[in-house]
């Protein structure tokens, strides 16, 4: 009998512990409010010295938590129980979160430093009048390649990826919208296409790329390029910058047919507890010298016009990171296509991956 009771208690205790852990996980960072500020950002996406500087200046204690996907981040905010004061979604996710009513409209009286942001990056279709979001970093999607491993192949056009000399050389990021979008661009279609015939055509064209594909992987791409394991990759500009800082042979190019222009944006989510602290933080991050230091650390392009003059002129004049306005004309920002369309993109992508051999 004793053993039975013990067994029952053990199970009840296990269940109780699991529930407590679950509750703890859900409210991680919930101690926010008062004099703490919980910032929920991508990994490696801020200079840690800046957080220290902010804490020193304001006396606010910053809790910094990271996520690795827009969807995961939104999930945590949507479920509630968290108290994130600041988060940094990509542009299509701003749209999605706005529709789900997860964002708080910004009060620009409290963010005077907004004047430092280049007007070119303001009032974009995903958030008209910047009601909810302020651009944090921006960049492009392109091809990073290592000329020393190739026989003079260059990449003015996406079609160059299909060149027979690149057998088993190209590495793609494991992301449906990027890869299918690339194929759509190479055919001259919009990378926001919702036309199923265009999507089919793009997928069929992708299938003919199979012989040239070495792998479809995630963040490991950066390491592989640095170590000369791969010669060509479809990758975002910031990761290309990471590669180049380690391996000087690598170069990055955005093909002429156009590509994706992306933004990560600071927003205040519905879960905010310390709203004054959040405004202070945003205003702090928009200071020219802070933005410059941050851009230098992270390696992506800053939308902060005043910060540009503080950055290494060689970087700022580099067309690969800061394409001029003419070059930007061919770039397109992702629209939120809705979950149904996202499903279609992913199913086509799955089909492509299964036909890779």
């Amino acid at each position: 009998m004793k053993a039975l009771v013990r067994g029952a208690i053990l199970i009840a205790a296990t269940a109780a512990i699991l529930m407590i852990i679950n509750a703890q996980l859900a409210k991680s960072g919930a101690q926010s409010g008062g004099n703490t500020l919980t910032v929920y950002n991508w990994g490696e996406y801020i200079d840690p010295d800046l957080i220290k500087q902010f804490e020193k200046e304001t006396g606010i204690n910053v809790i910094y938590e990271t996520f690795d996907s827009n969807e995961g981040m939104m999930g945590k905010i949507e479920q509630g129980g968290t108290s994130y004061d600041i988060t940094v979604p990509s542009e299509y996710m701003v749209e999605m979160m706005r529709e789900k009513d997860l964002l708080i409209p910004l009060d620009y009286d409290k963010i005077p430093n907004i004047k430092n942001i280049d007007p070119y990056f303001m009032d974009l279709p995903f958030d008209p009048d910047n009601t909810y979001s302020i651009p944090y970093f921006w960049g492009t999607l392109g091809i990073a390649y290592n000329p020393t491993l190739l026989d003079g192949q260059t990449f003015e056009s996406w079609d160059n990826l299909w060149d027979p000399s690149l057998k088993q050389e190209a590495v793609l990021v494991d992301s449906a919208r990027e890869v299918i979008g690339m194929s759509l661009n190479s055919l001259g279609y919009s990378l926001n296409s919702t036309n199923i015939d265009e999507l089919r055509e793009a997928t069929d064209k992708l299938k003919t790329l199979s012989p040239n594909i070495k792998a479809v992987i995630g963040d490991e791409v950066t390491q592989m390029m640095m170590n000369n394991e791969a010669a060509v990759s479809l990758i975002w500009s910031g990761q290309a910058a990471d590669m180049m800082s380690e391996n000087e042979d690598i170069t990055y190019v955005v093909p002429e047919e156009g590509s994706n222009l992306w933004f990560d944006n600071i927003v205040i989510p519905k879960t905010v507890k310390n709203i004054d602290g959040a405004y202070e933080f945003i205003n702090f991050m928009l200071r020219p010298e802070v933005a410059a230091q941050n851009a230098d650390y992270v390696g992506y392009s800053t939308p902060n016009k005043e910060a540009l003059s503080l950055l290494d002129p060689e970087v700022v004049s580099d067309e690969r990171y800061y394409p001029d306005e003419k070059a930007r004309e061919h770039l397109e920002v992702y629209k939120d296509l809705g979950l149904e369309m996202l499903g279609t993109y992913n199913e086509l992508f799955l089909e492509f991956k299964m036909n890779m051999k």
Partner: protein
Amino acid sequence: MMRDLKRMVRRMKTNRASLRLSMVPYSLWIILFVIAPIGLIVYYSFFDLSGNFTFDNYKNFFTSVYLKLTVSSFWYAFLITFFSLLISYPTAYFLTKLKHKQLWLLLIIIPSWINLLLKTYAFIGLMGLYGPVNALLETVGIGKQQILFTDFSFVFVSVYIFIPFMILPIFNALDKLNPALIDASRDLGANAWTTFRRVIWPLTLNGVKSGIQVVFIPALSLFMITRLIAGNKVITLGTAIEQQFLVTQNWGMGSTIAVFLILFMVVILLLTTANERGMAGSGKKR
């Protein structure tokens, strides 16, 4: 505790109420941690993206993409299980012949204490173009090969990971085998091969079957390795489930694939256990 329970069960045979009471901990466990989660998966599988009740997910599963995915998952799981068995059976057999067999067994088990992800990353380094394996190939004169992101690397790494799980049950079965039976078989004129085929193999078949179960079933739903080692050139049902939950946020479709995965597993389990009984019976007749 086991003996306590047995004695108790004997005592309780006449006492139905207490018998029912003794079931409480077990049924509680099964309801909370087995039935409820599976129930939730089945429940979610009947909803579409906007939360309406639907059978579309099941219809969708029978389109070409997912059926092909299922076939390829089974093929790779079969390869992994086959090669694991091929390596594990002789290994387990020779282990039982060794002096310090428990120590050797421990040495084989220890790698399974290391985190799976770490081991996988180690293989990326080992099999890379500039890794030690290629350096060796080059000195031998074969020259650099693309080892990563091939079927070979995928099956190799998976087999490496699963081998301890295959060896354990087979080792136990072999270890329990009464050596007198083998002596008897040799005395009666059977040669080594016949002894193996007619005595050792049938008597250790249960171990082999448990081994197959613990390898084949997880191999069906491997996901991380498919990306890190096979560069997504191999895709399993596990990859598809991960994608449905994390990227597409289509929990309904993800759950539907999971339901089919559970069904496949039940079938495999039934197949292996049903045969087990049959075997034991025919063994007696012989």
